[in-house]
């Protein structure tokens, strides 16, 4: 080396690498390439060339390393490794191209980190895309279970898989004609069920084949026959599926994830009254190892239903509420239309069918009437009733849905989407039993609320919220994107 005083080790670590990618010359440092991670092609190149520098007096004065790939995409990845952010030139390529090329160089992790949307916030979200399968595109069920922003959609007996970049990975056809429950239980295995056909079926999306089936059977009871799936949830090692027979006999079956065999039964019901119908919503609460289940039916006299919590290990029910009926409810005649549990906050949220109000119950303080009803301070947003003129408006039952995600509560009222976000700071929030812990805001715009269609399902996944609407093709993807900035006036 020319200036022999400098430490050879330091020179090697900060040593320079010249690369010839598809005919274009790039010069960078070993340390930049090494940020790609030890297993990547680029890090391998970096170590190779730094080793060569040590042995070889000519160092990087020699031939640059030749890589036979597209230089433009490489320059994007080089910028990404240098600065940690994706340059705007990345927009010239589809996310599929970028992902494929990133796989080649081994920088997929960096690309994913740079492309992932900012933390999802309901007060600042917009529809960034509508994922629309090619055929039979009205979704019957979907699952955003993997938590990386990917979504699997069931439509017309098919399952279409979209990855974290919302790129179409593949579509498989199942033997069911109407998949009404879908849960992604392994990274490439989906559990599906139908209201018209019995059993839970496990499909491997990569090989497009059925890898297992579970039916509810009870040798001691001949009525348990051809039970169909109403709802599913999963924990780290089990899948929970609520089954219902023709005679409305129902239970939640615990299915072992690794062997795909059925285990214990939870909460078996006869199904002869509203209190013993099959749970139509299941959710697992990992903190307390509890399973949340709820069921709602609406009839001529309004909604009726129950919320139950089961201990998964013992299978015992630890808490239940029936509406109307049980407890000393402060809201007589205003039973819930939908409920959901927020495991992060340890709270159950419900939306009332008549008033449209949102109430919550703290899981640590459940009792006869644990409900605290949220109130909005803003007078123009206080009236949650959508039935017009303070609720109770006869037979027009509005479709209400509630979904908890990222400590926020999303409520779908017919076609409108609103969010209750927790208020940070302030003296009021020190009191837990308070109606002013959340603020209400609309997520969507006013225009075309009625024409967009009634919200049929919401689910959060990654930094996204997926929304499907009745009889509308495709799934809306909501994100808090900061890139949806200024729009030029043409």
């Amino acid at each position, binding site marked *: *080396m*020319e*200036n022999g005083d*400098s430490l050879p080790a*330091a*020179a090697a670590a*900060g*040593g*320079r690498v*010249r690369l010839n990618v598809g005919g274009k*010359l*790039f*010069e*960078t*440092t070993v*340390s*930049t390439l090494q940020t790609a991670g030890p297993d990547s092609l680029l890090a391998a190149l970096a170590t190779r060339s730094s080793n060569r520098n040590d042995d070889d007096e*000519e*160092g*990087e*004065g020699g031939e640059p390393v030749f890589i036979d790939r597209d230089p433009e995409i490489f320059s994007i990845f*080089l*910028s990404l490794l*240098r*600065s940690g*952010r994706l*340059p*705007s*030139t990345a927009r010239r390529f589809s996310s599929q191209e970028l992902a494929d090329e990133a796989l080649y160089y081994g920088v997929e992790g960096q690309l994913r980190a740079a492309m992932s949307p900012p933390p999802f*916030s309901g*007060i*600042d*979200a*917009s529809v960034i895309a509508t994922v629309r399968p090619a055929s039979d595109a009205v979704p019957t069920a979907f699952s955003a279970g993997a938590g990386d922003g990917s979504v699997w959609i069931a439509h017309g007996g098919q399952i279409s898989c979209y990855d974290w970049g919302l790129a179409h990975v593949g579509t498989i056809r199942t033997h069911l004609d109407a998949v009404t429950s879908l849960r992604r239980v392994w990274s490439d295995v989906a559990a599906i069920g139908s209201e018209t056909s019995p059993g839970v079926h496990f499909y491997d999306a990569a090989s497009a084949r059925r890898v297992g089936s579970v039916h509810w059977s009870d040798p001691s009871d001949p009525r348990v026959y051809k039970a169909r799936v109403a709802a599913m949830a999963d924990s780290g090692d089990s899948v929970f599926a609520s089954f219902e027979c023709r005679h409305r006999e129902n239970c939640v079956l615990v299915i072992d994830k690794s062997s795909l065999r059925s285990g214990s039964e939870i909460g078996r019901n006869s199904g002869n009254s509203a209190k013993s119908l099959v749970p139509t919503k299941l959710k697992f609460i990992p903190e307390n190892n509890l399973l949340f289940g709820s069921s709602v039916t609406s009839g001529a006299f309004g909604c009726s239903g129950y919320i139950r919590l089961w201990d998964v290990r013992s299978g015992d029910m630890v808490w239940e509420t029936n509406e109307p009926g049980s407890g000393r409810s402060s809201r007589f005649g205003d039973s819930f239309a939908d409920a959901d549990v927020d495991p992060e906050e340890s709270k159950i949220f419900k939306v009332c069918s008549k008033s449209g109000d949102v109430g919550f119950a703290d899981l640590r303080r459940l009792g006869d009437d644990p409900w605290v009803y949220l109130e*909005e*301070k*803003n*007078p*123009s*947003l206080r009236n949650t009733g959508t039935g017009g003129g303070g609720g109770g408006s006869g037979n027009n039952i509005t479709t209400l849905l509630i979904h908890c995600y990222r400590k926020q509560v999303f409520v779908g009222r017919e076609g409108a989407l609103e969010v209750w*976000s927790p*208020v*940070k*700071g*302030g003296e009021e929030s020190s009191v837990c039993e308070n109606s002013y812990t959340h*603020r209400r*805001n*609309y*997520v*969507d*715009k*006013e225009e075309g609320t009625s024409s967009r269609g009634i919200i049929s399902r919401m689910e959060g996944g990654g930094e996204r919220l997926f929304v499907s609407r009745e009889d509308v093709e495709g799934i809306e993807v909501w994100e*808090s994107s*900061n890139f*949806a*900035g*200024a*729009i*030029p*006036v043409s």
Partner: protein
Amino acid sequence: MPPFSGPCAVAQEVYMKKKKKSQTNVVTLNVGGQIFQTSPQTLSLAGPSSLLSSISNDFSVLSDHHFIDRDPDLFAVLLSLLRTGNLPSKAKLFDMQDLISEAEFYGLQSHLVSALSNPSQFEAFNLEKSLILPLNGRDSPSAISSTPYGSIHVAHGSKITSFDWSLHKKSTILTQFSAVDSLLSISPSIAAAGATDFNGLQILDLEEGFVRETIYWENQTKSSSTVQAIGSSPQYLFTSFESGRRNSNSIMVYDLCGSLQPVMEIARQEIYGAEIDSALPATKLEWVSSFNLLMASGTHGGPFGMLGNIKLWDLRSPTPSFELKEKVDCFSDVTVSNSLSAMFKVGVNSGDVFMADLRMLSVEEPWVCLGQGRRVNGKKEGAGSKIQSHGSQIFCSKGGDVELWSEVLMGSSRTREDGLRDRVFRKNSMGKAKDMGGCKITSMCFGGNKMFLTRKDQQSVEVWQSP
């Protein structure tokens, strides 16, 4: 390990020869494989905290060319910026966010800001409606405020959304307000907010979304203190409070440079009986730096029309230096222009713009009508109009349009007996024909080289800038 890798151990021969010929007043940089040559003087312009000036200092010791592991094309743009102070036209080929993050790496953000969003580049006659900043949700903006270099905060519903100087959305936070009525940005990330239905003035951190401080005004009735207006001078923060029972009001002065300690209280009014005039809290506060005065104005709409008053306060004296009661054609909005040394109002009945020269204020007949002086026809032509001064122009909104008033300097106009000339003002409508009209303008503000507008029922902010 930083990408800047120190002196190059093995240099290419060509550059070695070149280097030997030229003396040390040429710095050779290798950025991502491309060679750049510049002078240490140019690099030192980057400022002491910048990476580049550290190279120019370093250079005298280690006379070898430097390798910086960054994108060479973006560096070329930033080097031209450093050389000329302007962004080269080829910068348009690059994405602004790429340039900003690259400038951050080299420590050149301030150069980029002053080249792109400098208040001195504001050209009132050359503004075009150019961008729309969309806001999510269903709430229309209730208040906006910008910083001198053009960051903007927008309050809509219970939320405040912030955009940085390049109009890139930075954050949306949830506040405790149901709607923010007064908003004032103290820095690109801190704002003061208040509302007429909320107790206290809140100092908000808009990046993290928390309340730094809530400031209350102690009034005699021990009721809540609602905020009617916020203003600032380089030194002070002014807040007009009204008690919750609406029987007293005051303007509090806080130290803006320190920890927002109250410095003094001016214009305290307690209301006894039915005296309407003292019941008017100030709803607009503007600092007049050339005269060291605070303009405070308030109006009241009663059965006999609008009443209002305008007071000019010298902070050192307990009584206003000047007080004007408005009864006939009361102002719908009023503003003070520093560079024109004049106060401007838009009359609520006539919709005309009036001027009062601050150098010769008279209580009897202060206003000079700048328009045609139309006869008042009973309609409230100027209701809801906003007037705002920026630079040496006056911007007045009429419905969905903006009028731009500017002074025409006449070389040979006659001088009046009081030594001041008759002043000539002329108006223009802003924007091209296709930009005219639209929903009613609800607020205007200025920052950097831009004008920001909000309109009724529009969930967006309109940006006007020079092409």
